[in-house]
Every structure is written in C-alpha cells, then in structure tokens.
C-alpha cells in the first residue's frame, strides 16, 4: 500500500529525485573519501614527518568537505521540496475524492476519521519520505561504499564484517520486533486516555448531574495507569537500543584492532590502513542501523498509507452524469416513483415503494415516527444518496441525469441539524448565493424570524460565527440556516424537521412569513408537530418506510389510523374529541 501510494505520487518528481540521489551520492562519496585522506596523512605525512605533505592534504580535505556540504545542502533543498510536494498532492487527492463522496461514504468513514486521514495520516507518510530522502538514499551508498573501501584496505580483515554486520542486524532487529507491538499498544492507550478526557469534557453536565466524578476519575486512572505501563515498556526497550548498538560497534572496533594488529605484525597491512578500516567499519554499521531505524518508522506510515488508500480506493455511490442535463424546462416539479432505499447489507429497507408528487405553489408535508425514513427520503432529492429502486424526478428528469450544479440550483435543503461555517452571519447567508445584496439578506432574516436577534448583535450582519455555529443558540442556528436557503431562492424547498428547535410562536410566525415567500415555489416539509403541517396541501404519512396515507389533514383525520394516532398523541382526548 505504502509503496503503491509513493510510486503513484512520486512519479511526477522523478527529475528532482534523481538530482537528489546524485547529490547524496556525491556527498557520500566525499564522506567516504575523507578517511582515506586521513590515512594518507598519517602514513605518508605524520609517520614520515613530512609537514608540507600534511598541509597539502589538509587543504584537499577542506576542499572535499566543502564540496560535500554543498552537495548536502542541495540534497536538502530538493528533498524538502519534493517531500512537501508529495504531501500536498496526496492531500489534494484525498480531499478531491472526499468531495465526490455521497453522505453514505462520508457516513461510513465518519467525518472525524476522514479529517485525520487527510491531515495526520498524510503528514506521517510525508515525514517518512523526508526521512527516506536523507537516510534511505545515503545508507545503501554508505554501506556498499564502505564495504568496497574496506576490502580495498585489507581483504582478510574484511572477513570480520561477515560476523559483525549480522550480529548488529540481529540485535537491532530483535529490539525492533519487540518494539513494534509495544509502540502500537502505546498508541492505542494514548487514544484511550484522550477518549476518556474527551468524553469528560463533552459530557461534563451529565457527569456532574449524576455525581459521577469519582467514577470518571477511576476510569481515567485505569487508562492512565495502562498508558504509563506501555510507556515504560516502550521506554525500556528504547533505552536498550542505543547503548546496545554502541556496544556492538565499540566491541567490533576492539576486535578489528586485535586482528588488525596481527595483520600488521605479519606485514599484511599498514597502520594507517587499520585506522581507515575502522572508520569504514563504523560507516557500514551505522548504515545498517539507519536502515533498521527506517524500518521502525515504516509500520506506522504503512498503516497511514493503508488508511489513505482506503479513501482513494472508494468510489462514490452517487456518480455524477457524464453529460448532465443543464436546462430544466419546467420549474419546481418534483416526483418520486416507487422509490426504494436500503443500505447495503441491511436486512430491511429504509424506504419501500414511495410515491410522491409535489408541484409549484404547493406545500407537501411528510410525517411519521422516529426512524420511518423521512430524512432519507429528503436526501434522495439533492442526491445525498441515490435511490436503490425507483426514480426521483426533478422537472421530469431523473436526478441521476441532471447536471449536479443545475440540481443544486433547483433544490434547497435545510438539514435537520443546522450547521454554520465559521465566518460571519453575512458570509453564511451568502453561502448559497454570493451575489446577494444586504437588503436580500435582511429580508431573508426577517422571513426566518432572525432579524431581531441579528439586529441586536453589535456587528449586525458582520457578527462572527464560530465553527459549526456554536456561538449562537440552537434555535438561532436553525433560523439562520433557513435564511441561508431563502437567500438562495431554489425552486424546491426541503425542510427536514427544521422547525422543531423553535418554540411554537416563532414556529407559527416563521411559517406564515414563509408561506408568502415561497408562494410560487415547491415546498416539502418533514415535521413531527401536527401544528406545523396541518395547513399543507398534501400530507404524506410514512410508517416503516412505506406511504400509508396521503391527503389533507381533514381527509387523513377521517381515513387514516396512523395519522389520527399521531395527532391524538399531541392533544388530550378531551381536546381531540
């Protein structure tokens, strides 16, 4: 997964990556050359007491060093740009894909999870790439170069590498193998602690009301304790890593000294070569260690890459038409023909054979109990999801064949849970119609019964709105959401239980104003209160996904048992009688 993701998204950057590899190669070669120069200084300068030679070679060493650093800076430049560009591209790919998703896919992943995937997960992969550019390229070059140069210094002594490198590999490998599950469990436990804290903050009223502080603290203490334990095992393993590796490296040096001394004694090599050999050994061991460190990072990035690929591999269930119908001839005509909807894998259908017709100037109401499918039904019209059977027609055209923008222009849905974007009241109201004038905004606010409280705000239309609209009350948020749709002036208005957060007076006033405003538009209202819908031209009664009755209030009161039950539940028998 990780490799596929990287391969796909690094492809456009082949050139800078090639340059980077070349620069790293040069820098590494320079670095490998330095010990040879040093050996030369010792063998031919220091031992022979040739000061001039020492100075000459010293000059060469400085030159090589400067060249090496120059190459490295170049590599850092290309590395930084490419890694960040990769992050940018993957992020954009994920974002664009999520944009195409229908509510169903967003719901399947959950918005928070999608956010984490777009931000954190991408960042993790990006960090791995940054590390790779600095380490992964250098390590193999260093390792191979070190081996060649070590062989060049003394072949028999190089035999030691056959023992030392695997020993280091095993030591590091064993620690990492134990470390991986510990790291994972530590992550899980951090999340657990955070979840408890999060719940305590979001549920603080309930916790205090039920006097559950002690219980919560116990719960937290458990999670905290478990995190401490995981932190300790991870820390203990980590604490072993560096000293152990250094021990292997240091003891290898000792071994090389011992065997090297014998080689020198037998005249097989020179003293300077021994020093150089040790340096190369060091470089080989360090490159092995670097590689292993990288592999320690890989599992995390792998998980992230999988999560990213999962999003990128998901196709929306609401596929836009390739050549959508842009011009809709009639206005505001809505029809549902035998519409079915069921979630994949679910036993029962949410909607079954729903028929409904709504025309301009008419108000159609949908009523039914919790879970009867009212919200799902409304969502099918702007294609938040597609019907699994039957047809949804807007102005005579199946919504699946309408150009998405044309559909969005025609249909205005006010969702059950009003959501405002951060910005100002004006920016929120103009969300559906950026060209709207201030007068139009005020008019919409007036209809939505929101003019009063907006006027009372010192900044008026420019009053700031926090993310989600958390700085205004639920009822105010609802009314602003209604105003927002009014500013857009769609042909078909869909209100999904929009009035429940309002008290009766406001509800009644709003509906009266709305009726004037939407006189020639098509209005579909989902509601629970009978008073909200009793004036509707047509009331559709939904029960367990089926239409069990259609008609006016009067007709339904006389003929429909379910409807009567709903009405009676809102009045006492005495009043209903």
């Amino acid at each position, binding site marked *: 997964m990780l490799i596929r993701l990287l391969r796909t998204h690094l492809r456009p950057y082949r050139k800078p990556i090639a340059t980077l590899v070349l620069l790293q190669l040069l820098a590494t070669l320079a670095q490998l050359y330095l010990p040879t120069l040093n050996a030369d200084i010792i063998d031919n300068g220091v031992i022979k007491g040739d000061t001039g030679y020492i100075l000459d070679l010293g000059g060469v060493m400085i030159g090589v060093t400067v060249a090496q650093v120059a190459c490295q800076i170049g590599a850092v430049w290309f590395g930084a740009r490419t890694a960040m560009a990769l992050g940018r591209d993957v992020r954009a790919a994920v974002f664009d894909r999520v944009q195409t998703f229908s509510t169903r896919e967003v719901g399947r992943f959950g918005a928070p999870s999608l956010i984490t995937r777009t931000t954190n997960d991408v960042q993790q992969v990006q960090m791995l790439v940054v590390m790779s550019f600095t380490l992964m390229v250098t390590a193999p070059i260093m390792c191979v170069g070190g081996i060649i140069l070590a062989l060049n210094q003394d072949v028999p002594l190089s035999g030691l590498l056959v023992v030392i490198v695997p020993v280091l590999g095993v030591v590091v490998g064993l620690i990492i193998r134990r470390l991986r599950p510990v790291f994972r469990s530590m992550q899980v436990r951090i999340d657990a602690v955070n979840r408890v804290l999060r719940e305590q903050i979001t549920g603080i009223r309930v916790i205090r009301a039920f006097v559950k502080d002690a219980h919560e603290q116990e719960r937290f203490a458990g999670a905290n304790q478990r995190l401490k334990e995981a932190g300790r095992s991870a820390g203990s393993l980590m604490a072993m890593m560096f000293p152990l590796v250094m021990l292997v490296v240091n003891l290898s040096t000792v071994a090389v000294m011992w065997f090297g001394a014998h080689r020198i004694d037998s005249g097989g090599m020179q003293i300077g070569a021994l020093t150089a050999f040790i340096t190369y050994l060091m470089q080989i061991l360090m490159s092995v260690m670097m590689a292993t460190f990288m592999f320690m990072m890989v599992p995390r990035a792998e998980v992230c890459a999988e999560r990213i690929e999962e999003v990128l591999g998901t196709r929306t269930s609401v596929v836009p038409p390739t050549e959508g119908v842009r011009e809709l001839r009639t206005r505001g005509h809505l029809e549902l023909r035998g519409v079915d909807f069921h979630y994949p894998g679910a036993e029962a259908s949410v909607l079954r054979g729903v028929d409904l017709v709504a025309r301009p100037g008419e108000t159609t109401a949908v009523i039914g109990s919790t879970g009867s499918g009212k919200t799902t039904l409304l969502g099918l019209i702007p294609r938040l999801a597609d019907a699994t059977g039957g047809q949804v027609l807007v102005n005579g055209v199946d919504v699946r064949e309408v150009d998405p923008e044309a559909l969005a222009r025609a249909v205005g849905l006010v969702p059950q849970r009003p959501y405002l974007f951060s910005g100002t009241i004006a920016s929120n109201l103009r969300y559906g119609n950026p060209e709207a004038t201030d007068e139009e905004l005020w008019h919409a606010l007036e209809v939505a019964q929101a003019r009063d409280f907006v006027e009372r705000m010192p900044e008026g239309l420019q009053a700031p709105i926090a993310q989600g609209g958390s700085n205004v009350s639920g*009822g105010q948020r609802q009314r602003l959401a209604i105003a927002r749709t009014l500013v857009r002036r769609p042909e078909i208005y869909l209100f999904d239980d929009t009035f429940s957060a309002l008290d009766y*007076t406001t509800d009644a006033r709003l509906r009266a104003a709305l009726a004037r405003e939407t006189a020639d538009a098509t209005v579909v209202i989902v509601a629970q209160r009978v008073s909200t819908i009793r004036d509707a031209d047509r009331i559709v009664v939904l029960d367990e996904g089926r239409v069990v009755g259609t008609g006016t209030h009067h007709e339904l009161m006389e003929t429909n048992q379910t409807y009567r039950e709903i009405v009676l539940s809102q009045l006492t028998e005495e009043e209903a009688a």
Partner: protein
Amino acid sequence: MSQDSVNGGSMNEEAKAAAARRPGAAGPGGGPGRFMMGRPAEKSMDFRGSSRRLLGLLRPERALLSTVLALAVIGVGCSVAGPRILGHATDLIFAGVIGRRLPASSTLAQALASLRAHGQGGVADVIAGAGHVVPGQGIDFGAVGRVLLLVAAVYAIAGAAGIVQGRLLNRALQRALYRLREDVEAKLSRLPLSYFDRQPRGEVLSRVTNDIDNVGQTLQQTLSQMLTSLLTIVGVLALMFSISWLLALIALVSIPASAFVAAKVGKRAQPQFVRQWKTTGKLNAHIEEMYTGHTLVKVFGRQQEAAETFREHNEELYRSASHAQFVSGLIQPLMMLIGNLNYVLVAVVGGLRVATGALSIGDVQAFIQYSRQFTQPLTTVASMSNLLQSGVASAERVFELLDATEQDAGPQEPARLPEVRGRVAFEHVSFRYDPDKPLIEDLSLTAEPGHSIAIVGPTGAGKTTLVNLLMRFYDPTGGRITLDGVDIARMDREDLRARTGMVLQDTWLFGGTIAENIAYGRAGATREEVVAAARAAHVDHFVRLLPDGYDTVIDDEGGNVSAGEKQLITIARAFLAEPVILILDEATSSVDTRTEVLIQRAMARLRSGRTAFVIAHRLSTIRDADTILVMENGAIVEQGGHDELLAAGGAYAKLYASQFAQAVAEVD
C-alpha cells in the same frame, strides 16, 4: 582508535534532527480531536519559568534522578575514556612496527641517534613520542591484548550503565507524566462549568490531549539525550585538555561556531515554522469544516469553491513547509561543515605535533576521535532546542489550565438533609454571566414536594439557566435557592446533585454498551433494574432489534442509534437514578409524538411523589403540570394551573391561542 565516527555522529544527528523537524512534534495521529486546531503554540510566553516548572514535575523523583545522574556520569565517562585507552593499543602496535624495523642489537637511544645521523630526524621524533619501542621486537600481543580487554570492559560498563540509566530515567519520566495527567484530570472536575462554556470545546480538548501528548513526547525525546550530550561535552573537553591543551583550544572554537550556526538557522527557521503551523491550522480548519458540513457543500453545490480554497491553503502550506524544512535542514550540513573543518585542523596541527615528537600518534588519533565526539553532542543540543521549544509551549498551555480559577470548594460543614422531601424555593434569585447582561432578575417561585412545574416561554427566556442554577452548575449572583428550607449553597454539590435527576435536550452518552450507559444513573444497578428502566423509557423494543442488544457499543457520535433513540436512553438513565427532584429539559424533543405519549405515561408514574421541573414546547408535556410558569426575559410573567391561566387571558392564554388552539379546533 576508532578515530572517526563520522557516520556514527551523523546517523544519530540525522535521526534526532529529523525528530526535531517533525512538524509540531504533535506525534502519532489517531486520537480523536487531535486534528482539531490547537497546535501547540509556536512561541512560549515565559520559556524559562515554564521550563523550570516542567522540570519541577520531576522533583518527586529526586532519588531516582540522582541515581540516573550518577549512572550517566559513569556511562559517559567510560565511553569517553574508551578511545583514550584504545589509543594505547595503537601506540603499542605502532611501537611494535617501528621496533621490528630497528636493529635488535642496538638500544633505542642508539637507534634514534643513528636515524638522526642519517638525516631522518623527523622519523626519530615520531618514534621517541611513541614510547615503548624496543628495537628488534615486534608487536607485544600480550600487552595489546590486555589493553583491548580493558577497553572491552570499559565499553561493557558504559553500555550497562547506559541501559540502566535510560530505563530509570524513563521510569521517572513516565511517573511524572502520569502525575501530570492525573493533575489535569483532577483539575477538570474542580473547574466551574463556566470554564467549559466560555471557551470552545476543541480548545480545552486540545490542551488536555494534544498538548499533554506533546509534553510527554518532547521530554521522552530530549531529556535523556540532553543529559548525555551535555555530560559528553564536559567529559570530552576534559580529556582533550589532558591530551593537548593546544588541540583542545582549537576544538573549543567549534562551540561558539556551532552555537552561532544553530542560533542563526534557528532564527531564520522559526518564522518559517510559525508560518507553516499557521497555514496548517488554516488548512486543517478548512478540511474539518468542509467534511463536517459535507451535506451543505453538496446541497448548495459549492464543491468548486471548497476545492479552490483548499488548493490555495494547500499550496501555501507547501511553500511555507518546504521553506521551513529546508532552512531547518541546513543545521545538519552546516554543523557537519564545522565538524569537518575542525577535524582537518586537528589532523593537520596534530600531525605537525607528532612530527615534532610533542604528541604520540595514538594521542592524535584519540584526539581526532574526541573532536568528532565533541561535535556530535553539540549538533544534538542544537537540533533538540527546537523540539524543546514546542514542548515547553505545550507545557505552558497545560499549566494555564492547571492554574485556572476553580469553583469554590463548598462549605466546610455542609448541611446534610437526612431525608429530602423535595420542596424547592427560589427566593429573589438573580443571575448574570456578564455583569451588564442580566439573565434572571429577582425571580421567586416555590415547588411543593411531589408537584410538577412546567416552564414555558420563548427561546432565550432563561429557562435553561434556571436548571443550571438549581443544579449548581452556576451559582446565583443574587438571592438564594433552598431545598426543604436549606440554602443549596450550604450543601455539598455532590449531595445536591445526587438527589436530582436530569434529562437534557443535548443527549450525551459515553463510549460503552447501552446497558452501561443506562446503569450510569445508579452505581451497582442490576441487569434486571437496567432492563426495567429501559422498558419504562421504551428503549427495550429497539434495543432488541440491535445485533448485540443491551451490549451494543455506542459512543458520543453514535452511528447506530438515532437522535430520538439516544434521547430515550438518557431518559432510561434518569429513570434508574430514582431522584427526588426530576429535571426534564426538552427531554423528548427528538422523539416522535406517539412514542412520547407512552413515555409521558411512564414519566407520570416516575414523577409521582417527586418534584419535577419540565421545560417543553409541546402542549401535551405541559398541560398536566401542577403549576405552569411563563417566562420572558429572565422573569416569570405568569404562573398557575393550565385552566386558571387560560381563564386569566394573559401571556399564557396568548401563547396557547397562537400555538395550540388552532390544532385543537381542527381536530374537533
């Protein structure tokens, strides 16, 4: 004489530098709420004070820490001494090589004299400096072996000390972090509700999750490294001076040079990082909004604008991030340049000194390695400073939370009511959040035991505030509230709340099974009691449709239960608690009316013998109340029974006429 651990140094440095470069060191993802804003602040306001306080967290671990320090000194001492001893082995080997070349018959003095006579004074000086040269004798393997064994032992000690020290330090650290989290948790329960109401939830969440994580990660990554790095600098410097003060002085130059580079790069990198985090914040906020408001983006057909804004922020992030990455990536090669220049300088000067016989070749080799060992901890310290900054900034945010004003602790000797009858009285109660915005003004009311009070009125009339005061989520700014004649301010908050059951419009369930969530209402409730409460609240029938029944796991975001069902669960929870006073704040607003009627009946049973406060919009909920309070602008404008108020023709009658009369007429 592993004279040059060029790579040894660089590997380490790179790994650390990469760690230090890790954006915001915000660490592993996953945690819910992690993505929400609140990156640790870039610049801390009081770096010194906060870092001192941060270190103060480790104070209880003093005993452990002194052991750590002792072990670190031993470990660093040993690993610093190792190359020095190894240098003797080189000298021995060198002496053997030279010795073999000299005629066995002569003494060393004779051999040197003869070399000088042949015009090889330089070589003679080198040999004289090497020591142990016995003409005619090869390498003394016995002596070399002994030295090497000693070195191996010293390295082994260093390794062992390093491991033990690392483990102990980690233990101390984990304990300190545990305590910090515990402190925060304890603090949360002592903070007044206004603390949570006044700032965005994400902000508080970010402090207790992101910031604490960041503090932990920073300490874990820096503490041990900083300790050994600083000790190594001191140890290496001491040894350098013991070998050659001239070379040591040369090496010493690299300290200010490194500091200069680190400071210069840091200064240029800092604003880039700030910019990077600012854009990251902007981008993440945009992503979060677009995903959470996904439906709206679709419904309003604004995908294109969303994508455009995204592209803008994304591009800006790319620019600032690659800049920051590049500038901070410079530290590495620049430090290497300093190290290598130093290396060359030492090699050259050292070579010259050996040539004149002032130093042994082993000493030079050892010195060269030391100069390498010296730049490595310097680079580490330079790279860590960035990471440390971010950690301290986070710590400061956590400390701010810990320092926030707490709610008053409650009376020393709280009034205890052995048996609560449930008479609640508001006596001239006033309340305001803002000094100049009164919410409740001089409000008085009395609820007799077992009576139910319905509170009606327009949005914002102060109905919920009344509940907040009764639950002592807030305390009145004037007047008092009594329970059976006792001022509730004189009671323990817990005691008061334990006698009160509350169901809110805003349902909250914790991550756990449905049974656990219902049992939340009463500790130690049996399964039968839970099911009984669930039946009364009409939870039972839909729970049975779920695959795992009562053991179905739900959470705050709870996908598998609808808003109405969640509300029913919270009602079951209150049923189980069997409180003396019951508060229902729009408890059934998301439940359809037919189900509500059934719940009403159950609630009527529940309410009998209990004092109940009911806030509702629905007529059916209100009408059966013993007393109806009509609130407007924080005051009670009318109170009485339904018929009585209707007959009076006041505010209630008007409200009723506008809301319900039509519906009633229609049904007739």
